[in-house]
């Protein structure tokens, strides 16, 4: 059993190095922690990251955790990473399209349609405020369901979702 500070440091190292979402399950296994302990530690860490000197934080994502920059540093970070980039990446657009037309939809379903892992894209879209969690699917595992937000409508100049163009190939091509 590791010391509490060591556990926190390990979690920070893991989330940083992976750069992706890590599920609670994985963290519990690697750190040999119970669920309650892990949740408590994550709450404590959230407080730690909340300090003024910190530029990163840990987001809850679909029963797991992912490291991200704090929103208040977005403008400074975007200066460096991509000065003019106000565009959505192809991966983001694709994911957004799936969510827009299939909402409420689970991550598993999105990944089945796209055929690739979509954790980081989803957390990016949540951070941008384009999608949000919309409850959980009443099936084993209770996966989180995602849907689009008001912000999504705003960005795409739609007043309601009904204004989305009909899909020609809706029925036969997806499932």
């Amino acid at each position, binding site marked *: 059993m590791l010391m509490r500070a060591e556990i926190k440091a390990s979690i920070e190292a893991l989330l940083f190095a992976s750069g992706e979402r890590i599920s609670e399950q994985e963290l519990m296994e690697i750190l040999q922690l119970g669920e309650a302990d892990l949740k408590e530690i994550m709450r404590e860490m959230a407080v730690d990251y909340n300090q003024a000197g910190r530029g990163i934080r840990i987001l809850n994502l679909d029963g797991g955790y992912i490291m991200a920059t704090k929103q208040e540093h977005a403008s400074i970070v975007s200066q460096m990473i991509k000065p003019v980039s106000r565009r959505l990446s192809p991966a983001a*657009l694709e994911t957004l399209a799936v969510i827009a037309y299939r909402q409420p939809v689970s991550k598993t379903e999105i990944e089945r349609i796209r055929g690739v892992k979509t954790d980081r894209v989803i957390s990016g879209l949540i951070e941008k405020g384009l999608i949000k969690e919309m409850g959980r699917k009443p099936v084993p595992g209770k996966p989180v369901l995602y849907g689009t937000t008001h912000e999504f409508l705003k960005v795409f100049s739609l007043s309601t979702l009904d204004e*989305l163009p009909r899909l020609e190939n809706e029925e036969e*091509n997806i499932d």
Partner: protein
Amino acid sequence: MSYLVNLEKFYGPLDLLLYLLEREEIDIYDIPIARITDQYIAYIDAIGYSDLDNIGDFLSMASYLLKLKSRMLLPVYASDDEQLEEGEDPREELVNRILEYKQFKQLGEYLGDRYEDSQRIFFRYGQPEAESLDAEIASSIKALLRAWDGLITRNNTEIEFELPQGEAIAEKMDAILSRLPADGLPILFGDIYGENSFRREALIYFLALLELIRLQKVEALQESHFGSIKLSIRVAIDNVNAG
């Protein structure tokens, strides 16, 4: 003394020489050239040329050693092209090369150790977070639909497309015929199914058109590849046949 026991790979002639010097505990500043040359050549013979990479490099060192050996035996008759200064040791160049090589071999080993150590440090894996940083996002429905289309095209490679069957086609055949002016004036096929129609719908129209052409009820004219298709009703024949 057996040379066969050592089958470890040497990374070059200098590596082999260094090994021989160390094994024989020879003072590098006073190399018994004749002895080392014999051992070097014996080693290459024993291992067999085919087992050595860079055999050319090993052989050119062998010939260099042989030359050096003969020069050591006849110090007085140094050849003209490689005149030796008074008191100069013909082995000096070899010694310097071996020393220089030895140093870099050791540095290579040092780097190897550092490399092992640095495997314990992890950097961030995966792509940078750039895409989640934008304050204001500009995009369009067009871009969204393009993304969706790309997805569909990608997925379609695995999905078997089900061809529309009889009834749907018969319905479109009627639709096409009803739109064609009875006087035989042509009309664009595109105008019939409409530009905003769905892809599947367009396909059914197209199948219906093919059927009408086969039945010689309609004449289709396409003036260029990928150009628009002009349709006209085949009045006379139609009348005759219908009669």
